[in-house]
């Protein structure tokens, strides 16, 4: 269960405050994996970031007794000037792990990017970034209850997609996913429920199909 209490998020722009969310009150039952739907700029990534503690709400709060991951995405999380290995070491350290060697090897094995693992992340392709970012969560035994995934599986090649799908389904048997993805097929693969962003509010659907239908009728022009 993730509770939103009077959550508002706005960004100051030249035309004044632009609200992404306004007074959202919602309880997300986390018994199913959830696909987040909304057009570009609706606030999907912002939502993931707030859930992951990478951004703060302007007002209100989000609480949960569950263990929620950081936002796994292409932007943020990995620092460009550091190598993949240094990024992994950093994440291990801030989580209180003193032996980082083991973690490094695990991520390296998962990512399979060879010598690039010791090159700066800014030289990576987006697929390679995704491999390292995803490998990070595989390497630790965090036992996340909720994994936040922002457009990460979209950029991988067939091998990586297969691999991450397997991992998501096996290792994270008890882990639910909150996922942003523009491909309905991808979402259907992982998620059973849907969360639609509409009118600066969140609408939860028990069935992903219902959410997709609603999304079609609201946003897609025929």
């Amino acid at each position, binding site marked *: 269960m993730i509770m939103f209490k009077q959550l508002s998020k706005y960004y100051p722009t030249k035309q004044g405050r632009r609200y992404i969310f306004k007074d959202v009150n919602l309880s997300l039952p986390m018994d199913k994996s959830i696909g987040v739907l909304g057009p570009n700029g609706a606030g999907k990534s912002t939502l993931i970031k707030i859930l992951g503690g*990478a951004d703060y709400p302007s007002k*209100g709060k989000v609480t949960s007794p569950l*263990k929620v991951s950081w936002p796994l995405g292409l932007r943020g999380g*990995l620092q460009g000037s550091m190598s993949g290995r240094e990024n992994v070491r950093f994440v291990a350290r801030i989580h209180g792990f003193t032996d980082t060697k083991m973690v490094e090897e695990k991520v390296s094995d998962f990512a399979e990017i060879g010598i690039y693992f010791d090159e700066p992340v800014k030289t990576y392709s987006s697929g390679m970034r995704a491999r390292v970012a995803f490998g990070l969560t595989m390497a630790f035994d965090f036992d996340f209850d909720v994994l936040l995934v922002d457009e990460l599986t979209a950029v991988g090649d067939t091998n990586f997609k297969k691999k991450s799908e397997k991992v998501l389904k096996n290792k994270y048997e008890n882990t639910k996913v909150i996922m942003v993805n523009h491909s309905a097929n991808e979402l259907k693969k992982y998620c059973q429920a849907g969360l639609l962003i509409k009118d600066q509010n969140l609408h939860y659907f028990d069935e992903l199909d219902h959410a997709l239908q609603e999304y079609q009728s609201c946003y897609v022009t025929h």
Partner: protein
Amino acid sequence: MPSFSELTHAAPSRNAFKIMCDTVHALLMREVKARFGSSKLGYFWAVAEPIAQAAVLGLLFTLIGRTSLANVPVVLFLFTGILPFKLFSKLLPQLSLGIASNKALFAYRQVAPIDPVITRLVIEIATYAIVYMVIMAVLAWLGFDVVPDQLLPFFMANGLLIIISFGLGLALCAAVQQWDDTPKLLSMVTTPMFYVSGVFFAATMIPAQYWYLLNWNPIFHIIELSRDAYFESYTTPVGDWQYVTLFALGSLFLGLGLYRINRVRFSA
């Protein structure tokens, strides 16, 4: 501040202070590597730069026939001014960019915007202490009496210098967030500061009626006070503990206040 206390990772359970220590440690390892690891000469420059500066100024004073300034050997006099000023003029740009250059890492909830600022403060203070001791050890070997006359006021002056730099650095973080040109403006201010902070002169060397031109400058006060503590033969006529302490508290208040106001904006 919205509460995320219940959204935690399953890593070893730690209290807030332990998390902060782990984060600062992690940042420390990568900052040190970035600063000194890329070129093996990194550590060398940290010591060589103040020595080169002192050498140039020392040469000038020797050329005009001075062997002591304010009853203190020229070399010692210069280092006790150059080193604290170096700390100040390095801390401000370093701290002010601490938040802006680590934004990618705020994706992890463990990393608060103030953590990289604290990290950089620790690195600069450690470097300062080591460089100070290395230089003084060399001077002792050359036969100078390098042991500070009064240790406590000497450390107090340095402590106040650090508090001022931390407060102003944190305030500058907020300024950097608002205006991209802040670093340029900052260097326009700190460069002339070198000439009005008593680095290569003491208050006793200028006529009393002109003291008011420098009196406003807390760094001038700090260098005066630290020389007063360092050398038995030098007594500062202007150094004012009260003024420096108030200035330090003021800048700390300003820095923490601006951090508090801007903390949400920092992570975006």
